């Protein structure tokens, strides 16, 4: 097990991801402070569309409003990764839970749960996300307002973010539930589970010891795929005007600004390159990590040694 965790894929993937994530998180005090030169909404009028320069604020250049792109990329990364990870976590928890119950219980419970999933699949996902947002946003804003009276952060903005990953997560569990259920159905019929049952092991032990470990692989892989898709969905929602509110940046919105700055006459390459590089690094890191973890966590990996 220990040797497995040191596989090059995990080290490279996890390392890159950790590097990006840490940089984004460590920089937060500066990207959020209006006194700092990399403040995400700090405008330097004379540096509009400024090319990358040597001073730290200018490493990534400046955007169309003269804001430090480094600061915006770092804060955007924090927001995008937070949305991605939180949405994936929700999707994994809800999806695994529903999938396990449906697959293991079978019968009418299975039918009921799976038909619900089918119906939700049939609805356009964007419609669901918007419905969730409309339903949750106002109560969330009011709740946060009552909690902290706007002392620490803007309730509307915080509610916007929380509702954002809640709604993406609440829509993203559908595929997860199907994958897990299929896996459980297959496992349930396998001889080692039948043997465990024949030995009279309690349900819980069969579940925890024999079924769940076999699910870790698909769940991990799917979770690492959900993070990037949540990040991309957020950028689409931002475009529709239901996503993260301007001027808060996300990698998706930074990249779409970058595409807008791409023209056959003049190309502000830094506006596209840097957000995309970071996005790419994070997504590749996630994929490597997912692949590596799947190999490590596969219970059958050591089967040959027996």
């Amino acid at each position, binding site marked *: 097990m220990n040797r497995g965790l040191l596989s090059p894929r995990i080290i490279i993937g996890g390392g890159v991801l950790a590097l990006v994530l840490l940089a984004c998180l460590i920089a937060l005090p500066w990207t959020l402070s209006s006194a700092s030169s990399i403040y995400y909404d700090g405008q330097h009028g004379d540096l509009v569309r400024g090319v990358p320069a040597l001073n730290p604020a200018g490493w990534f250049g400046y955007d169309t409003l003269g804001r430090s792109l480094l600061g915006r990329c770092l804060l955007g990364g924090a927001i995008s990764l937070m949305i991605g990870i939180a949405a994936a976590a929700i999707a994994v928890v809800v999806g695994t839970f529903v999938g396990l119950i449906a697959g293991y219980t079978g019968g009418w419970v299975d039918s009921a749960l799976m038909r619900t999933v089918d119906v939700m699949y049939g609805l356009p996902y964007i419609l669901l996300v918007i419905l969730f947002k409309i339903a949750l946003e106002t109560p969330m804003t009011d709740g946060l307002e009552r909690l902290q009276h706007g002392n620490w952060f803007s309730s509307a903005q915080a509610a916007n973010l929380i509702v954002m990953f809640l709604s993406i997560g609440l829509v993203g569990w559908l595929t997860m539930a199907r994958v897990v259920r299929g896996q459980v159905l297959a496992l349930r019929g396998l001889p080692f589970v039948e043997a465990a049952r024949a030995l009279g092991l309690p349900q819980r032990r069969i579940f925890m010891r024999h079924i769940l470990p076999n699910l870790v692989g698909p769940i991990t892989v799917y979770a690492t795929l959900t993070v990037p898709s949540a990040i991309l969905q957020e950028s689409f929602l931002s475009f529709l005007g239901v996503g993260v509110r301007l001027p808060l940046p996300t990698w998706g919105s930074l990249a779409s600004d970058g595409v807008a700055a791409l*023209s056959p006459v003049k190309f502000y390459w830094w506006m596209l390159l840097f957000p995309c590089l970071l996005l790419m690094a994070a997504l590749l890191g996630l994929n490597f990590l997912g692949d590596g973890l799947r190999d490590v966590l596969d219970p059958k990996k050591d089967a040959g040694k027996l």
Partner: protein
Amino acid sequence: MESPIRHSGIRRRLIGLFLALPPILFAPLCSSCDRRPDPAGAAVFRFINRGDIITLDLNQMSYVQDFRVTYAIREGLFSPTGVNFAPEPAGATSVDLSPDKRTYTFHLRPQAKWSNGDPVVAGDYVFSWKLMLDSPGEYTYLLHGIEGAHAYGDALAADEPADFESVGIKATDPHTLQVTLAKPITYFLDLIAFPPFYPRHEPSMRPFKEGRGYNSRYTRPPAVVTNGPFVLTDWQFKKRLRLDRNPNYWDAGNVKLSAIENVTNDNALSQYLQFEAGAVRYITEVPADVAPELRAQHKVGFSTCTAFGTFFLTLNCRPELPSGQKNPLNDTRVRQALALSIDKSFITENISRLGEPVASTYIPPGTLPGYTSLPGLGYDVKRAKQLLADAGFPEGRGFPKLPVLYNSDNSLRARVAQVLKQQWKQNLGIDFEIEGVEVKTFKERNSTKNYTISTVAWYGDYPDVSTFTDKYLSSSNQNDSDWQNPEYDGLLAQAASEADATKRFDLLRRAENMINMQVPIIPIFHYVNASMIDPSVEGMTINARSLINWKRVAIKN
């Protein structure tokens, strides 16, 4: 004009909003578009006219590209072809105006002919104007200043008996048209130079009659018969329109081009690439992302002119906000403070970047001959702070957090909203939020006044001050800010019945100044139209109203 209902300029501009797609996707399109040899060396003027042609039916038309083609193939009593695009006699040779300034007697040009050789007679005008009332469209309201026309239209709409005899449009003989207005309209000649007032050839349209109107197929070749310098000979749907010189046109000797080809291309960027490749000599619009760069590089052929439109913020002036809380913008001092604390030149220099004039007034200066606005509010942070303190929000304390609305498909407005947020925070200490919504919701929320501050625009429909000022009448359903001022309404009512053009402008000037000073809107900048014209093209002047004098356009060898 009695009806305050105007369609908003947004619709005509809408097409441009959807074109901001990644250029790489379209780059390969241009390998096939090398300049085709012109047959027999004749001068064919190929150009791209914005998007696709929507309709050439005078009743239905409202898009600028349709009007552009119509000016080439049709002609009215007067044409907007004089100096500064003032109306000059075209289908008519002269006009007599009665002393009460209500009756116009037009003397038609005897040698004016339709493209099939028939003479153009007064009856053709009567027929076409009656058709505008019988089958009403976007611009029918322009005819409502004619005596009896509004009542006639209302009666038809209500399925009551309507008598066209009561309408002040009469052909007294084949070459004399007499028009009686309900009350004097100082800009009536400007109106009749506009396509909804152009004549139509009834015999050629007869096969297409449908109910009270006509199927718009009458506008397609070979059936179509027109009276302008060019005639539509080929219309390949979504591909091209070909206009050939009309040999029967009364002034054919002065028409320089032998043919015009209107190439259809819906994508702004690929339009630009086609121009660059030399496939067309003129593109009427330049992609929003490219235009500022072309301007910065002083690109040959890049031309701009002030448009007949203004980009502004509309402020909700109702006593209560949509959320039910008290609206601080209900206080004029707050609105003035917001207006005084915007550095608009930052926006035109760094965001829009087409050399737009910074706006302190609602109406674009210099677009209406004889009209000058009184100065509006400038950039004065000190005064703004004072006004805000007077209104009970010293240093912005206690000011609620309000949202600024924009349509999320418009990246320019998104950026402007962010700049406003920064400037108001910096100059007044007020925190705003930015709310981007999808364009349909955006329009709906503006018209139902479900917003606090919104980024909008207005383009004039016809060349008169009232096309702007009527929007803010208390009774107007286009009055998005719900600013109601009896004094303003009074001034406009007075102006509407004023026969003297100078006095009328004085009244309108005072009315416009009330908007600028009481701030139901904050003008940001006046739009600029950008286009690319090949240096080989002569006689093409682009102008605020996108008019082209097609007779004068020529190609240098």
